[in-house]
């Protein structure tokens, strides 16, 4: 049984992605018998391509992807270069890591509430600094250049890339290289980019590509912060998919192919740039230049990092204030009064989304973590480590644009005629939860000292006893952390719940994003705040359960 789990896991991950891609491919060429499409045609591609503004939408998606990835990566790398090993770096790390678990939509709402013309920032500085007594008529949120959308994405991708880069540092001997470079007279930034960056980058390349693909096709952040005339391609796709006119599905299918092209295009541009930068880098390395204005860069990057994390935190605080706000006149910094009315009024409506969120999140996490544990245990028993190619497959669901293959899955379900079932929603969440749970657990699992198993074998205990009574209890903290990561990923899912559930299973996240267009800040505040806080329940449990269980076990506390 256990032997077949890795294959089953890959099937659960990759099967739906392939099926989904195929499911949208045929209708894109007009073939979808259930809706009367029986003849192959390219008319729907023509229709998509001649839709006004579709080229601009595609360009926005492409550029947003490339720019946010390049900027996030530069911030993270330069931050590590300039500050690794310092006290400031540790402090920043503990500030950034909770941000990782804040769902994209909640962070985006927070940012929107902060920087909008009538947002908290403007209120804090008005009227004493700006002279304004009424919100200015500026388009900050949803700006046509997608600046606020990129800011929101960068604020979320920086903590993610920082985490994966930190995991890669020890294997790159980053500290020794930094010391060596400095004894040769290199400044920290120049030294890092010339000695360590290539090694670290090679290790985090897949997560970087995942960030790139995500940013070119993201939907929820685009709805909340992105431009509207026209919106990024993914948002337009969703509009076509949800069009009551059922034949719009053909157009949406063709659009899904366009989205694939845009994401693929972004990946190709990125991979080509890698080569160019590599060539340029080789030339620069041998020139011997010791400094890249290191001090200025160090300080600027620190400021940027603080700013981006402060923005998200202040944004979440703003969500909280709005959800309790009574009458709040511009430009007052705080509401005239606070009230529980909004929460009380939403109370009943919250019940179903909350139940769905928890049910889907907990089940998907349980399935994903169980499969992860089974794969890792099978690996330990067979002595065969997952190859790098198998790891690549883990990233497939993170790199193929969600909006494209999830829509294909929806169309397939339509053809099968079944009603949306919560099981399909849960399994779709598993596709996205599993890679993160696996990536989070694999390292601590493999770092476990196998001699403990040898000792237990010598006592006559079999592999199952070793697994349940030695390895799992010893790695409990890591397992619970991986579960919390998985739960947080599930909470953040928007498209998977919306498309696969056919709108029948509202969660906190789908409700929050649906409210975006309405603009009732108090209600959005309630939903987005819950969304932002839910993941912390998981992480709290991951921290407290081992702490209580192992309160008298010093060796396990130190690692927790």
């Amino acid at each position, binding site marked *: 049984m256990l032997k077949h789990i890795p294959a089953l896991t890959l099937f659960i991950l990759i099967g739906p992605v392939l099926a989904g891609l195929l499911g949208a491919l045929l209708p894109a060429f007009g073939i979808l018998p259930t809706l009367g499409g029986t003849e192959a045609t390219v008319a729907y591609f023509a229709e998509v391509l001649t839709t006004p503004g579709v080229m601009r939408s595609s360009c926005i998606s492409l550029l947003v992807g490339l720019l946010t990835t390049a900027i996030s990566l530069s911030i993270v790398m330069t931050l590590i270069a300039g500050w690794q090993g310092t006290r400031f770096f540790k402090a920043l790390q503990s500030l950034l890591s909770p941000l990782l678990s804040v769902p994209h939509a909640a962070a985006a709402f927070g940012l929107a509430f902060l920087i909008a013309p009538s947002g908290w920032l403007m209120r804090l500085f008005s009227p004493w600094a700006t002279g304004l007594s009424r919100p200015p008529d500026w388009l900050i949120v949803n700006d046509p250049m997608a600046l606020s959308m990129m800011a929101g994405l960068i604020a979320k991708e920086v903590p993610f890339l920082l985490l994966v880069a930190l995991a890669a540092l020890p294997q790159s001997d980053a500290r020794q290289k930094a010391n060596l470079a400095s004894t040769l007279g290199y400044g920290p930034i120049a030294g890092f980019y010339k000695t360590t960056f290539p090694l670290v980058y090679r290790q985090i390349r897949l997560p970087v590509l995942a960030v790139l693909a995500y940013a070119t096709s993201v939907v929820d952040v685009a709805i909340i912060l992105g431009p509207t005339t026209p919106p990024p391609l993914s948002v337009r796709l969703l509009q076509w998919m949800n069009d009551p006119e059922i034949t719009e599905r053909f157009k949406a299918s063709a659009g899904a192919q366009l989205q694939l092209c845009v994401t693929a295009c972004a990946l190709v541009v990125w991979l080509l740039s890698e080569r160019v930068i590599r060539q340029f880098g080789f030339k620069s390395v041998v020139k011997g230049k010791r400094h890249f204005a290191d001090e200025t860069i160090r300080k600027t990057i620190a400021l940027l990092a603080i700013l981006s994390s402060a923005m998200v935190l202040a944004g979440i605080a703003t969500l909280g204030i709005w959800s309790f706000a009574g009458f709040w006149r511009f430009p007052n910094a705080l509401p005239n009064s606070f009230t529980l009315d909004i929460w009380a009024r939403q109370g009943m409506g919250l019940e179903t989304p909350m139940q769905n969120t928890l049910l889907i999140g907990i089940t998907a996490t349980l399935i994903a973590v169980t499969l992860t544990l089974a794969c890792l245990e099978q690996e330990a028993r067979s002595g065969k480590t997952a190859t790098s190619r198998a790891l690549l497959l883990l990233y497939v669901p993170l790199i193929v644009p969600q909006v494209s293959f999830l829509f294909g899955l929806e169309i397939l379900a339509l053809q099968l005629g079944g009603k949306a079932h919560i099981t399909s929603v849960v399994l779709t969440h598993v596709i996205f939860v599993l890679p993160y749970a696996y990536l989070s657990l694999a390292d601590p699992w493999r770092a476990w000292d196998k001699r403990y198993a*040898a*000792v237990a074998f*010598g006592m006559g205990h079999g592999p199952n006893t070793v697994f349940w009574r*030695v390895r799992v209890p010893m790695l409990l903290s890591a397992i619970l952390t991986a579960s919390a990561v998985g739960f947080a990923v599930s909470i953040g899912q928007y498209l998977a719940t919306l498309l696969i559930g056919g709108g029948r299973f509202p969660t906190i996240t789908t409700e929050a994003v649906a409210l975006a267009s309405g603009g009732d800040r108090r209600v959005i505040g309630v939903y987005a705040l819950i969304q932002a806080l839910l993941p912390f329940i998981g992480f709290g449990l991951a921290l407290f359960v081992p702490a209580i269980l192992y309160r008298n076990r010093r060796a396990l506390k130190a690692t927790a």
Partner: protein
Amino acid sequence: MTGAADGLTLTDVCILLNDKPLVHVSAHVKPGDVLTIMGPSGSGKSTLLAYIGGFLDKAFSGMGSVQLNGVSIEHMPAQTRQVGILFQDPLLFPHMSVGQNLLFAIPAEQKGSDIRRGMAEEALKEVGLEGLFDRDPATLSGGQKARVALIRVLLSSPKALLLDEPFSKLDADRRSSIRKIVFDLAKARNLPVLLVTHDTDDADAAGGSVIMPLETRST
């Protein structure tokens, strides 16, 4: 009643890494005797014990026959070989108390929780650690941990004992006393003992024969 087959017998045991031999041994260890295998650190001695114990890393391959009291064990799964092992580190399970570590080792055939607990307490007394049953292993001193590790492996009723440099991390004054306890208790239980070490003092204290079976290549 010791027959010729009793004890641990290695016949042409060879450990290979990438098809290159690291260790090659034929030897017989009688019950109550200690055989010391000498060699520098990192020379592959431990892989020999891993092969005998049944947990050789897949990177290596091993061949040759291992007989314990006349029974070939080299194809058995590790948990049925009844070969106990002590490593450099005590490796007490950190999530269990000292007493739970010991109870975990006592074979399940030994029924009755009072009897099992009694055995554990008795073993603690034997090595001068009375009253430490409920302690967190992390709070013990290095010497205490080593002694718990020793009685833990003995409580599991092994038929042979493998020692993988178990004294090398202890400080000098504790070292000789722990060494004495280990060899005395193993002898009292009439166990064949295989010790690998790079330390000649260990070999002297063990008192048995010493072999240096390592392929020495000047690479």
